[in-house]
């Protein structure tokens, strides 16, 4: 989420992070709806749904964009496992930087549900 917000600021845009959390296309991320559905499908087990989602992303951003989107999903699918499996905490400065949306979006619920 912090990276997404930073990307938005880099592009002089203010993405609706709440929409990302809720999984609806109102995030203002270009092609956000197609990308959200694609991410869900890649991490799911329904091959037919993945095929449809992939076609939608390809139609929206082309083959190169599809490849890049898949790489982002793959990279984060791997790197979050590193974080989870080594027990690293969030750095204090990042706690401060993310405190606003951490509370507003109730991201703490993921930790509660994990427990």
């Amino acid at each position, binding site marked *: 989420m912090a990276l997404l917000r930073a*990307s938005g600021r880099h592009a002089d845009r203010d993405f609706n992070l709440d929409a990302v959390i809720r999984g609806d296309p109102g995030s203002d991320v270009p092609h956000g709806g197609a990308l959200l559905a694609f991410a869900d499908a890649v*991490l799911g087990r329904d091959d037919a749904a*993945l095929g449809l989602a*992939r076609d939608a992303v390809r139609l929206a951003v082309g083959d190169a964009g*599809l490849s*890049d989107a898949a790489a982002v999903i*793959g990279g984060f699918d791997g790197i979050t496992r590193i974080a989870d499996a080594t027990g*690293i905490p969030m*750095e204090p400065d990042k706690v401060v930087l993310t405190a606003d949306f951490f509370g507003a979006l109730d991201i703490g619920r993921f930790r509660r549900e994990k427990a």
Partner: protein
Amino acid sequence: MRATLAAAETEAWRRLGLPGTWWTASERLAIACESRAAADCAFCAERAAALSPLSVTGQHTIAQKSVPAHAIEAIHRIRTDPGRLGETWFLQLRAAGLGEEAYVELVSVVAVTVAVDTFRRGAGLPLLPLPQAAPGGPTRQRPHGARPGPGWVAMLAPEDRTDADPDLYQEHPGPRRRYGANIHRALSLVPDSMNPLVGFAGGTVSVQRSDA
């Protein structure tokens, strides 16, 4: 596929088949193979669906009989239910005989396998066959400056690095010097385990930058 992404994937995959620091090449490939098989483990599926993973007992469906039992449990949980791992679980693996350094390298192998497989599934590409195992034994070199924390495993912080330790926080190529965020330190107990995923994930981060 962009050339930098293809190169990162090729390099990450090639290194899976090389001897590691605490596992041989054959052992690393068995870990990778087992992590793929874990996705279809019925016990893992039942446990992942349970309110608490501790409430379910059973046996993993094992693809690689050569992998030690404590490593099987680590591979399967990291692959199928990573969000609910805890330090108690990690300490149980350690008590069962899984070395801290071997665990870190195992995490790296699973993460690289997951990252590449997920990427290819998304892109509509076939899964890569695992590479051939290169001969040779593990080097068993632990960074001299590694210290406990801030996670469950020891890590090599930039300020603790000795002259005998590799510089893990200088990007190559490029002038950028990382300050040592925890995600970059996470695998630093086994420096050679850091590079493949950093390379692959680095490709994805540059995607984000170019899209921004």
